[in-house]
């Protein structure tokens, strides 16, 4: 047990046999107390002798040993519990194995106060359970405790997870020189059902040394949604990192949206007096982790150690002419902060936001209704387009076999069309009035949008000169920069950048398939570079009914920091399609733009950014250029250690310099500090499974393009098994083959995520996935922030017909309650049931074919199962509580995550429409699917690799 609680210096734990609990004695004063002490002994502190017995004590009455929970606690509790017969243990062969762990870690967690613990091995106390120390660094408490578990069989797993989680969240107290360590709990995964609720758990805490920050603000570390690291402790040497096989990378969404009303986010604090203190040498921004020296006149940079002058305005409020409180400054209290930048940070006066719409008006686009919906959405969004100071400019170009420009003079009420049919040498037919001020030319824009679709109604042109249209738009807005929004329903076949339908079905499923995921023409790459140079970003909206070469077209958004959106089989006559596109397009249009942005990550000396993944152009070794920063996009930056790291913590700082759409130059700075460690077990204890999964996803997509899909899948599995092999050999120090798969508790869902990843549409084996869908899935895999990426890889699965009473209703705190998430296995599907599977892009409502008519009536308003139509649909809102609850859950799911996506609802009948059915079933990743292994088989594969065969 000694590894469970680490006492601060000067404390000792003694067993009190009368009360069956530990009593803690402060050695210097002889004072005793029941609570686990968290403060080191200072000789005299207020003696709080609390007689409160520890709740945990009651758990371990000998009579209750048969309960699985107690047994697990015992198993993990220490050496003294092998009296339990092996056969009765529900954990399978897990018994002897934690002892290894315990013994190995003994010296590391050894504290003087616990010297006697081994001498009293019969005591089943686990003070850590009962005494929950305050959670560290504002980390939210784990949400498990409240979750109801509907399956008795799952209970031990969940309870165990709860216990582990609690242990991890609390700090272990200060050992030795005040250095805190993560507690490693080893769990065996073989034969256990994964606890999927753990996917929303926060990363392991950053156990910073005390006084690392100059202020005691709770906001000195960023929220994981802004930035998280695959390891929450930094290894001190590269060789240690290499030895551990753990990846070291930052996962960030620095310009993530702010949803105060849904998530209760705090807005980013803004430093308004444009006093920006930066290190003279490394250009780092002042942050909570610097140290003030020379009586507070100078500050020492936490990255390079240079001493810099503190600006006088830190202590003097110039506006009100009175002394100011330096410690109240936002940059010293907040990890995420925005500075208003003075003119030195501008290359030119802040430019207005510019939107150029390039709309495909070929016959197919008109027929699908795309043009009509797009025009109507733009029209409706004209008030929402960021236009705070009436400077926003707009241009509209329609593209079919020729380019149609629209002259929109400020005083006109009608637009006039100018047609250019020269596609090879694109020129602008008119120097003015093509790119116009949105406010001034509003009447002309409105009238044009109102009739855009009708204008081309009768044209029967087949062919799309998208490339030329993009070039024209680029010429039009290149001088200012801004955003090109391209909407196309057909493959570009004319002019510059013409593409061929190259989706040869013979290539699918072979090693050559990766060529279909790479760009077919270099035009889009070269053009992307041109755009990036002139601060133009491109968003692609693709409406395919047939092959549109997403892989090639998505190059443009990838290198210009845009985003690709795909609407397969779009048909506006289906209201679901139209609503989905209109909602998402409207959100994209109203999204605030950060223009002319650059991102740079700075870090403590010795750390180097070695590779970058995401949608941007890498302008120099450490500078990312983004013509427009999109909200809620994810970037992954790999780190390397060039030199050994000396200090007790390191600081990583991301800065985005951008122009807001209301003409202000701003710098958003995100500072993160991490403790250093030289122990491999501490590295494993601090690994963040979600961040690692995000990193592996990006690496796998990159690999699938440069090598092959097969290779990408193998890389994921190999990385995972390498990590676990090192963990097994170095941390648990058990050698030789083993029947178990040992993983640290904080990585216990990583194998599940890896298993789901290799079965994801973007990487899945098989010849049945259209290359467009695959390419689009890969775009999403590399751009979705963790919050959406995790469900995209590992969908959420709820059972609706027997959900708890509070699910689908609003609880006391005003939050919509979702049903408990289930494991993704078809064992959970019942023939009479109603289930919901969602992967943040689609929602599937699964209806069992023996569903009682009452259920069908309540939810769908139909008489029986036979009348029910499968496919894309909208759930009716009926006048009964169950229908309302189901609708509430669907709506909650849609707004659960940041981002513009509005998932479709598909009704899946369990005995009809095999394609839709197998699509929905393919999301149940714990199952065996075609010849892809089930979760259990995957674990066995990994275990065999870990064992070295």
């Amino acid at each position, binding site marked *: 047990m000694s590894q469970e609680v680490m006492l601060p210096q000067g404390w000792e734990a003694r067993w009190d046999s009368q009360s069956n609990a530990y009593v803690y004695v402060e050695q210097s004063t002889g004072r005793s107390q029941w609570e686990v002490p968290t403060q080191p002994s200072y000789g005299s502190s207020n003696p709080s002798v609390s007689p409160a017995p520890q709740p945990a004590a009651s758990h371990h009455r000998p009579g209750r040993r048969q309960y699985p929970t107690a047994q697990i606690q015992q198993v993990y509790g220490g050496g003294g519990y092998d009296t339990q017969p092996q056969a009765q243990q529900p954990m399978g062969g897990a018994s002897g194995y934690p002892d290894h762990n315990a013994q190995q870690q003994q010296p590391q967690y050894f504290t003087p106060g616990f010297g006697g613990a081994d001498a009293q091995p019969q005591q089943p106390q686990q003070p850590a359970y009962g005494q929950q120390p305050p959670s560290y660094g504002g980390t939210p408490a784990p949400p498990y405790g409240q979750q109801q578990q509907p399956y008795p069989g799952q209970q031990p797993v969940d309870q165990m997870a709860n216990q582990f989680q609690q242990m991890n969240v609390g700090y272990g107290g200060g050992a030795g020189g005040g250095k805190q360590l993560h507690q490693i709990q080893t769990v065996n995964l073989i034969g256990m059902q994964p606890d999927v609720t753990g996917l929303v758990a926060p990363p392991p805490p950053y156990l910073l040394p005390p006084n690392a920050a100059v202020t005691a603000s709770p906001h000195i570390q960023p929220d994981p949604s802004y930035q998280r690291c695959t390891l929450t402790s930094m290894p001190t040497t590269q060789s240690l990192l290499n030895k551990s096989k753990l990846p070291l990378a930052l996962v960030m969404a620095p310009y993530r949206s702010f949803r105060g009303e849904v998530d209760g986010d705090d807005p980013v604090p803004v430093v308004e007096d444009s006093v920006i203190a930066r290190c003279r040498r490394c250009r780092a921004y002042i942050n909570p982790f610097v140290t003030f020296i020379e009586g507070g006149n100078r500050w020492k940079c936490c990255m390079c150690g240079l001493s810099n002058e503190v600006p006088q305005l830190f202590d003097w409020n110039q506006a009100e002419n009175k002394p100011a409180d330096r410690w109240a400054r936002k940059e010293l209290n907040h990890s995420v902060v925005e500075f208003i930048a003075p003119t030195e940070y501008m290359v030119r006066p802040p430019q207005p936001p510019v939107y150029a719409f390039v709309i495909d008006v070929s016959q197919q686009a008109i027929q699908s209704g795309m043009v009509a919906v797009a025009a109507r959405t733009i029209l409706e969004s004209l008030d929402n387009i960021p236009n705070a100071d009436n400077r926003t400019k707009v241009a509209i170009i329609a593209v079919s076999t020729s380019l149609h420009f629209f002259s929109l003079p400020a005083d006109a009420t009608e637009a006039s069309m100018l047609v250019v049919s020269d596609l090879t040498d694109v020129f602008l037919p008119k120097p003015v009035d093509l790119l116009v001020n949105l406010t001034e030319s509003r009447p002309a824009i409105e009238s044009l949008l109102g009739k855009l679709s009708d204008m081309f109604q009768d044209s029967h042109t087949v062919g799309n000169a998208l490339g030329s249209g993009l070039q024209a738009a680029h010429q039009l807005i290149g001088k200012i920069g801004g955003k090109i929004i391209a909407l196309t329903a057909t493959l570009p076949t004319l002019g510059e950048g013409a593409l061929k339908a190259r989706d040869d079905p013979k290539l699918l499923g072979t090693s050559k398939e990766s060529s279909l995921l790479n760009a077919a023409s270099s035009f889009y*790459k070269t053009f*992307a*570079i041109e755009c990036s*140079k002139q601060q133009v970003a491109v968003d692609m909206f693709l409406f395919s009914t047939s092959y549109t070469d997403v892989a090639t077209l998505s190059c443009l958004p990838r*290198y210009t920091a845009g985003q690709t959106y795909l609407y397969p089989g779009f048909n506006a006559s289906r209201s679901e399609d139209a609503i989905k596109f209109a909602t998402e397009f409207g959100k994209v249009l109203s999204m605030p733009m950060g223009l002319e942005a650059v991102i740079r990550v700075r870090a403590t000396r010795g750390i180097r950014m070695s*590779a*970058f993944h995401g949608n941007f*152009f*890498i*302008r*120099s*070794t450490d*500078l990312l250029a983004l013509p427009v920063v999109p909200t809620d996009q994810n970037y992954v930056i790999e780190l390397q250690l060039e030199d050994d790291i000396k200090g007790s913590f390191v600081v990583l700082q991301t800065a985005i310099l951008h122009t807001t759409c209301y003409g202000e130059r701003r710098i958003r700075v995100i500072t993160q500090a991490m403790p250093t460690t030289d122990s491999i077990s501490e590295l494993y204890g601090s690994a963040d499974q979600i961040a690692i999964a995000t990193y592996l996803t990006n690496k796998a997509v990159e690999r699938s393009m440069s090598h092959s899909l097969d290779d990408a899948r193998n890389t994921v599995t190999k990385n995972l098994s390498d990590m676990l092999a090192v963990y097994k050999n170095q941390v648990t120090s058990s050698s030789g083959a083993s029947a178990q798969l040992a993983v640290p508790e904080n990585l216990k869902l990583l194998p599940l995520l890896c298993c789901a990843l290799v079965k994801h549409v973007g990487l899945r084996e098989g010849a049945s996935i259209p290359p467009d869908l695959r390419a689009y899935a890969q775009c999403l895999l590399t751009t979705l922030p963790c919050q959406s990426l995790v469900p995209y890889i590992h969908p959420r699965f709820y059972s609706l017909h027997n959900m708890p009473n509070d699910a689908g209703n609003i609880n006391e705190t005003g939050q919509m309650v979702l049903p408990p998430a289930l494991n993704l296995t078809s064992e959970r599907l019942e023939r009479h049931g109603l289930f919901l599977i969602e992967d943040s892009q689609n929602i599937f409502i699964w209806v069992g074919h023996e569903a009682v008519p009452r259920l069908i009536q309540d939810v769908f308003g139909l008489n029986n199962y036979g009348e029910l139509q499968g496919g894309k649909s909208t759930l009716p809102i009926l006048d009964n509580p169950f229908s309302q609850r189901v609708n509430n859950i669907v709506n909650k799911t849609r707004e659960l995550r940041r981002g513009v996506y509005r998932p479709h609802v598909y009704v899946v009948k369990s005995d009809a429409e095999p394609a839709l059915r197998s699509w929905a079933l393919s999301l149940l990743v714990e199952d065996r699917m075609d010849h892809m292994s089930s979760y259990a088989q995957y674990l066995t594969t990994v275990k065999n690799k870990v064992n070295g065969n």
Partner: protein
Amino acid sequence: MGGEGWLFLFAVLMAAVLLFTMVFFIIMFSDLECDYINPIDLCNKLNQFVLPEMIAHAFLTLCFLLSGQWLAFLLNAPLVGYNVNKIMAKNHMYDATEIFRTLSGHKKESFIKLGFYLVSFFYYLYRMILALISESD
């Protein structure tokens, strides 16, 4: 001076030119690493030299083949094959979007080519002198 002498004199000059091209490439790559040049300019600049370098080398190899210098030809043939393969796969040009990811590979390739041209320079020089000596005999 006979045919062989002239051939190797030409080869020496070509090897020297190729040598300098490679030195230029390596300098440019280090410039990129030190942030003296941006990747777009770098690629525009280097891409002008990629094909000329390959053609020059292929031409030299062809000369060896036609004049029956088998050893010299065999020495150069693998590199010609490598270049042709690269052109066929369409990845002979430097790509500004990928350059940072592939930089270490490009540098390594340039260094190997540099070494190769250096060795061949001295080999051609030796053969030239040999040819001149055998003529004067």
